[in-house]
């Protein structure tokens, strides 16, 4: 089978074939697979619904038929530019949606935000949950831009765990930083993250002192955040230790939740780095100037501009396109994009160029990403236009929080990646996104989508989230025609079409209730439209639609994006 040829490549002969460029990543695809045209010139083919849907699948957390209509009517370039335009104002901060009749926050009234402080130990968990709910709100809202997809990318890249960071305010500020910088300047971003209180807590920077340097952040700064680990990134263990010394002295002010530099704990000796960094010496500085060494360190790291740029471009490529990077992709996609990126480290033009490329829209790159658990939930929520409560803040936050818990149930607790490397789907070779799926998580995913569409998902006693399958059908062009109805549903839900034989079987066993003539469905639908309040008639079409949609959502194809 295909995986055999693929993986044995890396293990036979005991010394795996080493690609000089891509050592620890996938060596190459199965021979019969084609990764598509490896060109970053702008896509010049026909811009149709399939291309628009591919763009939306990869850049949004789900979409509706109306979204497809909206973007398909543009040009490719306008569509990407629209997606890349994020709102000027950041989202309003999370609110107290957690008060109950017995537990009332004495400082923050219901419906007000808690992010301006102070922290209150009695409400730490409540506020964390509020933060998670708020995040799901951003993910599930109908916005048509890339902000949330980029935010998750950076959350996975600059991994921290809300549950470990302590203060929910510091955690919120960190996630605001991710959102605010998601398409900004990477060099500036790394500096901000380096002195960000949440990161100082998570990787022990705040206890890194001259008497006992703590190497945790210094190591991950190089290994995970900038240079990566691989044949072209040959920093040494001594470099890690010296970088830790450079970074000594950063502390957190727990009154205003900001970081500051305490020169008395800063190591003031000179730090000399290995030949990988050209034997650079960072001159030790005393007093407040000690903080400037952090800039010297980042300058030294970013001077390895090819290493940094290619590492970041590869990560973005894997996130937006596909996890396999062969020598051809490296040469013709990664390196050219990295060469532009390293001139100014601006992320927005980099992502724009990738998304507009011939390569991105090549049919071979469509449908080959396995959805992460949040995408499973959010795409289902959006395509069926699930109605979240608008009545009270408590109900809203309860509903969004329940969606967050569904993600955790299926293996992705946003805010809390498994460790500082982020989720294995984005780094673990050779499985990458396949690592989302196994005999535990796949059945859970299917039970979630069935729950949200057919059964209904109870987020609070007596309150359910459930797809309105009739409304879903009504928005399609010809809901009375079972063949067209199924095709339109497949186009919105699945990235791979089904065979005519499968569609016929599906139609007969669901919409036609075991019969073979289309009019069984057409009559049922028209009868319902004529008497929309007739419970029996409504029940008939509802059952048919639910059966049809459950079949599609259960298919392996629905796990792909």
């Amino acid at each position, binding site marked *: 089978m295909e*995986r*055999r040829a693929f*993986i044995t490549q*890396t*293990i036979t002969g*005991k*010394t*795996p074939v*080493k690609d000089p460029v891509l050592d*620890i990543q996938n060596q190459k*695809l199965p021979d019969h*697979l*084609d*990764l598509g045209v490896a060109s970053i010139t702008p896509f010049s083919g026909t811009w149709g619904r399939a291309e628009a849907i591919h763009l939306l699948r990869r850049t949004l957390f789900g979409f509706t038929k109306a979204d497809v209509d909206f973007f398909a009517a543009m040009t490719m370039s306008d569509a990407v530019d629209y997606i890349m335009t994020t709102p000027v104002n950041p989202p309003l901060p999370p609110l107290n949606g957690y008060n109950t009749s017995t537990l009332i926050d004495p400082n923050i009234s219901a419906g007000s935000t808690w992010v301006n402080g102070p922290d209150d130990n009695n409400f730490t968990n409540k506020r964390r949950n509020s933060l998670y709910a708020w995040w799901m709100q951003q993910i599930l809202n109908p916005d048509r831009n890339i902000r949330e997809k980029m935010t998750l990318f950076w959350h996975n890249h600059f991994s921290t765990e809300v549950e470990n960071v302590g203060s929910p305010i510091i955690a919120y500020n960190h996630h605001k930083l991710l959102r605010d910088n998601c398409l900004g300047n990477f060099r500036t971003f790394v500096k901000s993250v380096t002195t960000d209180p949440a990161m100082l807590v998570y990787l*022990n920077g705040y*206890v*890194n*002192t001259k*008497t*006992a340097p*703590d*190497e*945790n952040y210094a*190591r991950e700064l190089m*290994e*995970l955040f900038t240079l990566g*680990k691989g044949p072209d990134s040959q920093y040494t*263990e001594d470099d*890690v*230790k010296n970088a830790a010394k450079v970074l000594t002295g950063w502390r957190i002010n727990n009154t205003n939740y900001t970081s500051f530099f305490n020169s008395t704990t800063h190591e003031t000796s000179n730090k000399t780095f290995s030949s990988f960094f050209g034997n650079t010496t960072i001159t030790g500085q005393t007093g407040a100037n000690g903080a400037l060494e952090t800039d010297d360190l980042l300058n030294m790291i970013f001077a390895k501009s090819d290493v940094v740029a290619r590492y970041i471009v590869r990560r973005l490529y894997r996130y937006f396109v*596909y996890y396999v990077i062969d020598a051809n992709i490296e040469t013709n996609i990664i390196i050219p994009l990295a060469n532009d990126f390293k001139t100014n480290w601006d992320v927005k033009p980099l992502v724009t160029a990738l998304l507009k490329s011939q390569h991105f829209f090549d*049919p*071979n*790159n469509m*449908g*080959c*990403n396995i959805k992460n658990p949040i995408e499973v939930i959010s795409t289902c929520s959006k395509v069926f236009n699930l109605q979240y409560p608008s009545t009270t803040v408590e109900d809203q936050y309860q509903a969004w929080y329940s969606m967050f818990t569904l993600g955790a149930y299926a293996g992705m607790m946003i805010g809390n990646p498994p*460790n500082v*490397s982020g989720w294995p789907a984005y780094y673990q*070779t*050779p*499985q990458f996104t*396949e*690592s989302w799926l*196994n*005999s*535990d*998580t*796949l*059945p*859970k995913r299917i*039970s979630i989508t069935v729950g949200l569409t057919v059964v209904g998902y109870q987020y609070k006693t007596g309150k359910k989230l459930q797809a309105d399958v009739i409304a879903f059908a009504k928005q399609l062009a010809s809901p009375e025609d079972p063949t067209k109805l199924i095709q339109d549903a497949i186009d919105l839900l699945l990235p*791979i079409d*089904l065979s005519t034989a*499968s569609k016929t079987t599906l139609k007969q066993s669901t919409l036609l209730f075991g019969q073979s003539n289309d009019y069984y469905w057409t009559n049922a639908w028209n009868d319902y439209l004529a008497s929309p309040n007739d419970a029996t008639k409504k029940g008939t079409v509802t059952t048919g639609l639910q059966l049809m949609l459950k*079949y599609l959502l*259960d298919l*392996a*194809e629905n796990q*792909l994006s």
Partner: protein
Amino acid sequence: MKRKEFLKKALPATMVPFFINGISIKTMASTPMLEAIKRASLKNGRVFVLIQLNGGNDGLNTIIPVDQYSNLSAARSNILIQQSKVLSLTGNNATGMHPAMTGLRSMYDNGKVSIVQSVGYPNPNFSHFRATDIWHSASDSNQYVGSGWAGRYLEDVYAGFPAGYPNTNDPDPLAISIGYSVSTVLMGPTGSTGIAISNPTSFYQLVNGTVDPAPNTPAGHELTYVRLVLQQTQAYNNTVKTAAQAVTNKATYPANNSLGDQLKIVANLIAGGLQTPIYTVSIGGFDTHSSQVTSSGSTETGSHADLWKKVSDAIAAFQSDCDQLGIADRVAGMTYSEFGRRIKSNASLGTDHGAAAPVIVFGKNVNPGIIGSNPNIPASVTVNDNVPMQYDFRQIYASVLEDWFQASVSKTDSDLLFKHFDTLAIFKSSLDVKKVRSGNSLTLMQNYPNPFKDFTNIEFVSPGGQVELRLFDSQGRLLKTLADGVVPKGSYTEVLDGTHLPAGNYYYQLITANGQTGRHLVKL
């Protein structure tokens, strides 16, 4: 170097005959009956449980070298467990356990624990990600291998997997990871050999749809993968459920203990009749850069103590359960972590990434006791100094494969671990066929002079046969091989020319046919 030649007994896999009771079946035509015999002998009903401690466990505060106390105090006074609180081990005055490990201590005293000291590999890696890959793939430090050692073993035993599985002969999963994800140690050459289970009684029943052929694109490649997971999930659904419902656990497992919860499922499934030979479970939080202990005044409490209380209590409950369920004869397990931690502690009551650390193997059929000697802590420890390896982690894998699962040495050497590793006397079964090997019985003298400036002498006694003397730096990097060859029984002295070595702590290691041992030396 020549070590490879000396140790290499490996032949290309195709040349290796398969033996049953000393009779090679390679020379006979392969028949279904022979295949069945081969399978039966490969599958001896034994189960091994891999307990991963994520984050890098501080071995020096786990299995505590009490004979090194004064030097340990100098290196890590703010986190070192007070000597009076260390749990003593019956029959071993030099070594103790963390005070939280009461469950494992009592298992040790009852002869159900084998501790292997200072397990690591040459040229250790200090990245969590990479070090875990090395432990799971059983590769050299500079070698990249896409499969796991257990996955390779399972794909070898279960020929042709996954095509045609499950079937009448092999109805059960090859390996089970308890939790939401399958461990990379179970990745085989053709794909994962494991399935993940977080609740064995509530598998979701999936629908069987018509299946269209997958397109010949990357999307088709991934579609095939998803379908395989779906198919396996459905295929194993009933066997796992049936096993889970066949028996109930007999032991009381500790509350609020995620590892105990996982091991409880493992015991249930084994006793319920699953033939699955390998289980993986895990517990995180060992990356104790800070607050490893509550304070320098109460070092016996804190996050590391909490973790080891959980691990120890969970394993003790699991062992008790296996005893009561009547499966203890065929169940063993081990703890491992991607690395140990630095000898010197940091100012935040924690420790940074280090190198070698002890591995704990448990079960009714382990040789009780400690293999290897306590790590030798230098009097003056710098932030760079690490615990040097005494045993390669793949020696433990070789012992599990050859002595526990009875895999052939040639298969282990060629396809499973990629080269030969001497086994250790971890399992009782190994006593029948191997000389007992103990590092303590070897004679390796302290070098003189020590500390030294230019030259120093290293004296050792060879039992006769192959001898190798290796020099490592304080970070575990193999610097040079000082001696390597076959010598008659006798006493030998090697002169180490240290004129080009930077000042610092070093470690030298003697490997003979009787085992291996090592000592520290200091260059001025």
